């Protein structure tokens, strides 16, 4: 464990040096990713310019859902932007270099390129949205929210990461799935709306197969409505671990099928 912590610090130090070389790049990417996220938030306010509540959910309640979902997804993007990188390693044959080193493969990829610091601004926007939402609620959240919210957040990030990792693994057997991955990543935005507005098959899809509703909606609904959403609310913090285990198993099988591009 100490070995991995030390190794990670080395990776981070190298990465910071690389970013220092491209300061303007960093600034442009940092600012524009914040603006992109802010524009998403602006959507919510535009929608609420036409309505007072969405299927019974007020603006502050929707903001809590949105904040949770965005903070979780961007947390995964900032610290575990691994799945996207796997293609590059496989295609260039770089994976061979990592395979002969004595550290876990996923960890090495996470260290070399998984840390996308410019995305950090988005996490802050997500957290800010949660705080603003909390002040706008008619009655304060129960005390256990202080424990539940961080758990749900981490679980949400794990869900987001795991779904992408499984998609990336599929490319070991099938064709290049990167465009499919981008499409499905885009799809996580459904997590910001009450999943109950969807048709039943889609509700099932976004609860169990691509459990994006477990990232924002179900945790927030459990905090705000209590009993009505107890089952899914209690399941949400576990879903991340469940999917992490699942995706890592798929990864282990996939990597055994890896054949070097050999260049």
């Amino acid at each position: 464990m100490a070995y991995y912590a030390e190794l990670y610090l080395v990776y981070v130090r190298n990465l910071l040096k690389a970013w220092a070389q491209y300061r303007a790049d960093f600034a442009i990417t940092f600012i524009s990713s914040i603006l992109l996220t802010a524009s998403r938030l602006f959507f919510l306010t535009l929608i609420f310019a036409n309505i007072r509540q969405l299927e019974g959910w007020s603006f502050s309640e929707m903001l809590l859902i949105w904040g949770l979902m965005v903070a979780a997804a961007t947390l995964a993007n900032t610290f575990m932007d691994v799945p996207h990188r796997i293609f590059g390693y496989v295609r260039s044959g770089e994976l061979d270099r990592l395979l002969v080193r004595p550290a876990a493969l996923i960890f090495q990829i996470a260290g070399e390129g998984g840390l996308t610091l410019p995305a950090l601004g988005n996490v802050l926007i997500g957290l800010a949205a949660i705080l603003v939402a909390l002040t706008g609620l008619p009655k304060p959240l129960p005390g256990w929210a202080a424990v539940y919210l961080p758990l749900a957040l981490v679980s949400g990030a794990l869900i987001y990461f795991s779904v992408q990792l499984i998609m990336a693994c599929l490319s070991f057997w099938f064709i290049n799935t990167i465009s499919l991955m981008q499409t499905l990543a885009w799809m996580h935005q459904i997590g910001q709306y009450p999943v109950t507005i969807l048709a039943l098959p889609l509700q099932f899809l976004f609860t169990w197969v691509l459990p994006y509703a477990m990232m924002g909606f179900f945790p927030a609904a459990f905090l705000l409505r209590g009993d009505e959403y107890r089952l899914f609310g209690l399941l949400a913090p576990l879903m991340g671990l469940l999917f992490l285990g699942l995706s890592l198993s798929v990864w282990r099988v996939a990597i055994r099928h890896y054949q070097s591009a050999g260049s």
Partner: protein
Amino acid sequence: MTRVYEEIDRQLGIVVATVKQTLAYRFDFFTAILGALLMMALLYYLWTAIYASSTSMAMSYQALITYVCLGQAFSFARPGQRRILVRIGAGIRTGHVLMDLVRPTDYQLLTISDTFGAFLMETLMVSLPSYLVALLFFGISLPASPEAAFGFGVSVLGAFFLVSSVDFLIGLMAFWTMNVFGLVWGLGYLKIAVIDILAGTVIPLTLFPDWLRGIALALPFQGMAFTPLAIYVGTIQGSAIWTSILSQFAWGVGFVLLTRLVWLKARRRIEIQGG
């Protein structure tokens, strides 16, 4: 005249080459259709819920659903549309831009022809199939009138012209900054953010608060989505169809002239990195 014909012939060659190239990645069309349909479904249910929760809205339910679904079928926020930015960006970082510059044609024309090939294929293989599905399964309306149908077609071309000339302008900045990563990803994100809101892709400008609608209608970005979609559903009708298309093309020509000036300056600044 023969020189003009030769040039047209060259550009056609580039379009055909791009068409063949995109055909090699057929699986991408399939995922793009899947993505468009899923986004369509999400927006369909979202707007149905919003409409049910509203007391009064400036658009009818049918027009709203048609607008939103059509916007996903003919989307200019699609990954294939990043082609210009990616080509210029990657070209500068790897030095391949040199290959493009020594070709016996104009660089700006070359990138636009190349993107047009991709646009053509995306329209045929992704937009039209998604549109058919929307007609059959989401129950969207046919064009408001024959004039609206024709206007929509012209306006989609106008939108392509506008989007690609703006992209070329953004891409040219790489000749100055050399910060290709920030440019392609950063400005690419920014473009999506701007298009998503000011073009009215997801929320029709008709439903914006007055102050914001005023701003959006004064800017060129509405031509990237709102103009064709509003013509289709009949929000823009009569002679307004042609004035709005005219303004779309005027903005497009304006951007082309501007990029021309910038390009003539950028050309002299080229540093070839690597090779």
